[in-house]
């Protein structure tokens, strides 16, 4: 007897939905094993990691708070991913969005105008788009691979943030900490539920999911991008512009990541520091694929990813595990997802070896 993978006549629709669930289950299972190997009780570990964060309404609000930037980034990235535009630099676009939007808030710190917040959001989106425009231009003009250029620009963005908060934008009364002044109340997103930190950005994110769903499923542009992603020659035959797909794919990702960035600055973080994002831009790629590049799926997968972030914090606190534990879980999730996705196109078959 041995195992053989046999190509399915056509990709299994059922499997494409089962695969993320299987991946999550396998991640849980390996997580428990990991706790055992680390000398912790798996039951205790599971409780601390996955149940503790959700035990009260504050915890659930935190879950939505952390899921917000993930939803925003993931839905923007999905638009590009569907057209085979591989923007993996959302983290950098998030940071530049935070800088540009935050810069507006700092520059107009004494204004109490009602348009300050909307202006910051727009500026954040434009900042993210500008950062995403660089790989888009390099791809369409010089055919440079956007995977490399968008990733490299993440590190550039990190250094720009670092320079600004250590230098020109550092708070003069901040005891030399690398951070800007706190944003004024007028520049801070309104809280949705008193007593929690969950803010209006969640509504923006849900709105983005809705718009994303309409764009991808109902709009002609979304259709053209799907064609470009699935059959390049058919797109050219129909006269759809491949360059436009690249631009829209990159800019959608950049805009959403930029909004995610400024929403962190004018929300839970409250100022610009070097630690605006714990890797939301990267985690959003896993969120997008676990959610099957579908906004409804992304809603749920971003909650799952948010839980991994919170579980990681709890595990640090109560199990004395290093903070990288949540990255380990993220990695396992992606690993098992890629593994399970094989079953979409192939089915396992046990065959007897012939003599």
């Amino acid at each position, binding site marked *: 007897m041995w195992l053989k993978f046999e190509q399915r006549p056509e990709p299994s629709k059922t499997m494409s939905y089962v695969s993320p669930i299987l991946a999550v289950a396998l991640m849980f299972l390996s997580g428990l094993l990991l706790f055992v190997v680390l000398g912790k009780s798996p039951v205790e570990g599971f409780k601390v990691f996955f149940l503790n964060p959700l035990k009260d309404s504050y915890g659930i609000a935190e879950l939505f708070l952390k899921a917000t930037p993930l939803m925003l980034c993931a839905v923007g990235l999905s638009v590009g991913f569907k057209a085979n535009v591989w923007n993996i630099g959302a983290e950098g676009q998030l940071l530049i969005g935070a800088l540009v939007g935050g810069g507006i808030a700092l520059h107009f710190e004494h204004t109490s105008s009602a348009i300050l917040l909307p202006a910051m959001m727009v500026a954040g989106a434009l900042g993210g788009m500008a950062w995403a425009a660089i790989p888009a231009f390099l791809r369409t003009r010089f055919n440079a691979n956007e995977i490399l250029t968008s990733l490299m620009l993440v590190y550039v963005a990190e250094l720009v943030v670092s320079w600004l908060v250590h230098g020109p934008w550092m708070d003069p009364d901040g005891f030399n900490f690398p951070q800007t002044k706190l944003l004024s109340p007028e520049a801070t997103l309104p809280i949705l539920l008193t007593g929690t930190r969950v803010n209006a950005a969640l509504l923006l994110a849900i709105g983005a999911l809705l718009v994303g769903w309409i764009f991808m499923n109902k*709009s002609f542009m979304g259709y053209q991008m799907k064609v470009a992603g699935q059959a390049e020659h058919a797109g050219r035959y129909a006269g759809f512009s491949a360059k436009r797909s690249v631009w829209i794919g990159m800019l959608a990702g950049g805009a959403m990541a930029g909004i995610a960035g400024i929403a962190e600055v004018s929300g839970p973080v409250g100022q610009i520091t070097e630690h605006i994002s714990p890797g939301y831009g990267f985690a959003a790629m896993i969120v997008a694929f676990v959610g099957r590049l579908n906004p409804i799926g992304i809603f749920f997968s971003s909650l799952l990813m948010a839980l991994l972030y919170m579980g990681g914090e709890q595990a640090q606190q109560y199990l004395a595990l290093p903070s990288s534990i949540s990255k380990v879980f993220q990695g396992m999730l992606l690993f098992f997802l890629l593994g399970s996705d094989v079953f979409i196109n192939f089915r396992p078959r046990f065959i007897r070896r012939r003599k």
Partner: protein
Amino acid sequence: MQTPSSNTPRLAIRGIRKVYPAIVANDGIDLTVMPGEIHAVLGENGAGKSTLMKVIYGVIRPDEGELIWEGQSVTIPNPAQARELGIGMVFQHFSLFETLSVVQNVALAIPGEFDLAALSLRIEEVSQRYGLPVDPRRMVHALSVGERQRVEIIRCLLQNPRLLILDEPTSVLTPQAVRKLFETLRQLASEGVSILYISHKLDEIQELCHTATVLRNGKVTGSCTPSQESPKTMARMMIGEDLPAYSHGETGHEGEVRLRIVNLCQPTEDPFGTTLKNINLEVRSGEIVGIAGVSGNGQQELLKAISGEEPLADNRVIEMCGIQVGHLNPGKRRALGMCFVPEERLGRGAVPRLTLTENILLTAYRKGMLLGGLIRFGVAKRFAEDCIKRFDVRCGGANSEAKSLSGGNLQKFIVGREIMQDPKVLVLAQPTWGVDVGASSFIRQSLLDLRESGTAVLVISEELEELFEICDRLVVIAKGTLSPSKATTETGVEEIGIWMSGMWPDAEKSGEAPHVA
């Protein structure tokens, strides 16, 4: 015609049945092939011919039934096993790696030592012996359809098969080349090789095959000796009724020039492509112009220039409906009223994983399917259902994926989609390649009707019979140049056949020979 000698059948199949979720592809099929016999398998699209051949070649497993190879009951789990038994197959959709050279492709299928130099020699030897010229060093992606087929045939022959299966082999050859292929096949048969010949071309079957098995809806509906039948009687066995006759309208009521090509010169960047030289052509409203030629002589390049998929340096060289369009992309040319049916169906004419409704949108979105940037799926779906009905597309409905359709049915769908947009200019490449008799006569009649309604139709085809049936005028393309045009009534297959070798009066004498099959 010689009769097969030995009494043990080379291959006998008994009661083969294969059921797919939606369809019974083969339903109790019996068939016997003797050594040295050329046996035709005749049937419409979806009759089950390809499924049956794949069963024999070990690509798919039958649900029921038995295969008896030279008197022994066998199971053929995979193509490698089939090749080991001595079965070779040339598929209708070629199975070649485009990024490899001819000899590398052949080497992959041949067991034994990997010696490209020696293999190249063997390829040249076989290609000479059986009249199948091809350069072993060329890259497959640069080969024309006709040349790729030769590679497939040579690859089979190198393994000394005792049963050779050919799926629609003549669709891409000149009349002279078809005759040559038939000589090759007769030569093989006289050497004792059995041949299963899948085709819908009744005259060819009559000329070549000793016996024929006719399939319809997955069942055997008859066997016959083609030499004792007429094409009409065989067609009736195949489609269950008589073929419709064409109704040609009057000729000579052509209107204004809808498509004009003026001194088109287009150098190719592909080292194995064809440079277009000084192409001039006019197609008027209400006429069908045909471009004959052996594949690989510039058809692909010319089509891309006309469709707009290959941008042109000079805006003036192509005019559509009086507007210079050399710089316009395909979308803008379509907005002027051009429609186009490409040679490749899956991946270019249609997106494999999208539904038929979504594939309607690919080119027909201008027919009221958009509203403020959003898609009106209801309108697209009605269009798709209409197209399925009018063009008799056999499928599971407008929600089926394009890749679930058989080649011929997908072609009907694509042709239907383009025709139903009421084009001012319709350009078609190989409109009936691999399409069965019933469907291709329907497509041809649709083109004739379109011409009646004033469309300018340009057909590029390698099937001369088809061009003679529907075209008002013919031109020939050879090594990237175009012959003068001739009214179809004033020329014949022989003359056009000679022109296909590049030898028309006043043709450029210098330069390399065209790719003649």
